[in-house]
């Protein structure tokens, strides 16, 4: 139970086994006074450190943090060697790197968490296990409508590795907004909002900085954050682990 004390929720998604980025984001969230944490899925895949990353999340979940399942997590639990999609290709390797308790933890993660007016999901609130991408207002509108049916006004999700805010415009249409990092945006509850909060471990908007967001639940202000981290070390770890070199290269260029 949250009570009346101030609540600052750090929203982190698509960690992708990037230990360096996760550590940097958690330190940044701590400095910004985060009181609560939510991990919106894809803890593993692409990166070199699935085990240590899952350990951190497990420990924080034990202390009350929320964690959700993403497609890469599902694939790491039950990899399909015949499937050529990135999550399954990487899933075979991740599976081999994770201990039984770590895999059980991933297997038990929920697809959706709802807290008061907030709905957290890895991809779309419409049939979450289909892992639909939300990049356009129409897709955001569908997800918001599904969330509204569950009395939620604010939807937070990951999966697309880009930071974007969708909202209802003057004419009732859903509009997309490209946020500026570090600006606190009021997200009052009389409107519907959907934020894709970006990726901690593998940003894809051309910038290497790790992305996450902080929601001040008390004042309803959302801040998108970018955190510089040692992406060279993360890339070196990927190469050392024998993973595809593109996984390493893309971190420096944010792709």
């Amino acid at each position, binding site marked *: 139970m949250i009570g009346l004390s101030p609540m600052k929720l750090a929203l982190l998604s698509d960690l992708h086994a990037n230990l360096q980025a996760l550590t940097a984001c958690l330190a940044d969230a701590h400095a910004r006074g985060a009181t609560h944490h939510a991990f919106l899925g894809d803890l593993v895949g692409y990166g070199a450190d699935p085990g240590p990353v899952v350990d951190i999340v497990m420990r924080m979940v034990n202390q009350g943090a929320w964690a959700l399942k993403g497609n890469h997590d599902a694939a790491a639990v039950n990899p399909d060697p015949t499937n050529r999609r990135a999550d399954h290709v990487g899933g075979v390797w991740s599976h081999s790197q994770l201990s039984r308790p770590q895999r059980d933890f991933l297997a038990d993660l929920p697809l959706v968490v709802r807290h008061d007016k907030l709905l957290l999901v890895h991809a779309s609130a419409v049939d979450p296990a289909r892992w639909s991408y939300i990049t356009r207002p129409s897709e955001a509108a569908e997800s918001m409508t599904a969330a509204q049916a569950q009395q939620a006004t604010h939807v937070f999700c990951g999966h697309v590795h880009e930071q974007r805010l969708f909202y209802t415009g*003057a004419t009732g249409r859903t509009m997309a907004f490209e946020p500026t990092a570090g600006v606190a945006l009021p997200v009052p509850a009389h409107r519907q909002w959907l934020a894709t909060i970006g990726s901690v471990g593998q940003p894809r908007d051309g910038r290497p900085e790790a992305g996450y967001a902080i929601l001040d639940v008390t004042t309803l202000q959302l801040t998108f954050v970018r955190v510089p981290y040692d992406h060279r070390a993360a890339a070196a770890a990927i190469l050392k682990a024998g993973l595809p070199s593109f996984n390493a290269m893309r971190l420096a260029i944010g792709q």
Partner: protein
Amino acid sequence: MKLMEPGTEIDGFVIGECVHAGGMGHIYRIGYADPGRKPPFPMAMKVPRMTGGDGAENIVGFEVEHQLLQALHGPHVPRFVAAGDLARLPYLVMEYIDGRPLQHWLDEATTTRRRPAASEIAALGAALATAAHSLHMQNAVHLDLKPGNVMIRSDGSAVLLDFGLSWHGHYPDLLAEETRLPVGSAVWMAPEQVVGMRGDPRSDVFAIGVMLYELACGELPFGEPQTRGGLRQRLWMDPVPPRAIAPETPDWLQEVILRCLEPEAKLRYPSAAHLAFDLANPDQVAVSERGRRTTREGFGTRLRRWIKAAGMHYEPSPLPSLQVDQIPIVMVAVPWKDASDATLYSLRTATNRSLGIRPGARLACVTVVSAGDSDHMVPGRGETDVHRAHLDRLRQWARGLDLEGHQVSFHVLEAGDVARALVDYARANAISLLILGAATHGVKFQRLIATVPVRVAMEAPCSVMLVKQSLPFERLGMEPTLAGDNAG
């Protein structure tokens, strides 16, 4: 909506006199209910009209204004104090601005049947443009500038009010319209706003043009259109030139006003700072046919604009500060004594280079002379002559510049403290880049006192480019002593 009685208490504030009751709501003077708590500045409370039958646009306007007031700062916007909860009791508490609304000048002109003097119109316009530019540099565009939303303080500076329809690049645009419904006040609305475009700082330049036009002529350039069709006319129609209505309007003022009112945004002043600059320097306005004409433009021009306008539609805008930064005002400080040919040559080269990569940038060439300097001049030459001689030198210096596509002006400042004068000038004119010689303005005393270039670099409100001599005549043949210093 019911008027609140003086003495009513809300969230720790006590209501005073109602100073404005309008269609959008009420404005009250207020204080803190706790008599021991003194406000740091006078405060006003704005209570939007938001009862049952009121439209959603008032609620959105309230949200937008709340967002903007929290984000904006500086002397040209009221300071933000507090906001009431939207669901319970919406209100905004902000600084009460003690001044005269611009509307007073228009009303006074109507009553006395005398148009304000051109110099007064220019001063008001410059204050307005300076205030708008300060907003644009903070990534906001007002989009509803009109005489009722502008307060002029006793020092002549302008404060902008009412941000309910404004746009800020850092926040989701709650008023964004992809359905092409215009938002704003019809009289002052820029053509691109008519088709739903928001976020262009030049829309505010247009609105300022409408106000200057009314100040000069006593008439509205586009009337008060009541229909969508009437509103769209300004996409291709230029107004009757001010001199046709008020023949006493100087050509430079008409040039400025009509440039603000160009239907195509890219033909207007590229930023409000450029506009403020012209209004502050009327003698430097480059008057074209636009400033002298007494009839509207021809049918051909209008037809061309009409065809272009048919294709205009809503699109998202880049950040205003970026738009404005791309067309800066560049200032070059040209020394008038102790300056070698090499220094002047290097300054010219650096200026050319800076202008070349900034299409549309304007250039202000400035020289500072000290008040006593005329004493050393040839006896019999008065101060005006000295002034003129300096202007001629500046013009001569600028002759070597490639000024294609750039406006240029020349300024002789009189001051004892050269660095102070340059910095003040840069601040007053929203200069983006100040170019000066690294070894000019008294460099001989470099080891003893902070030189002018050093002080300017430290105190300037903008970027400073210190230019080194590229033709080191004095040093030819000295290279060996410069190299090898770091040997070992």
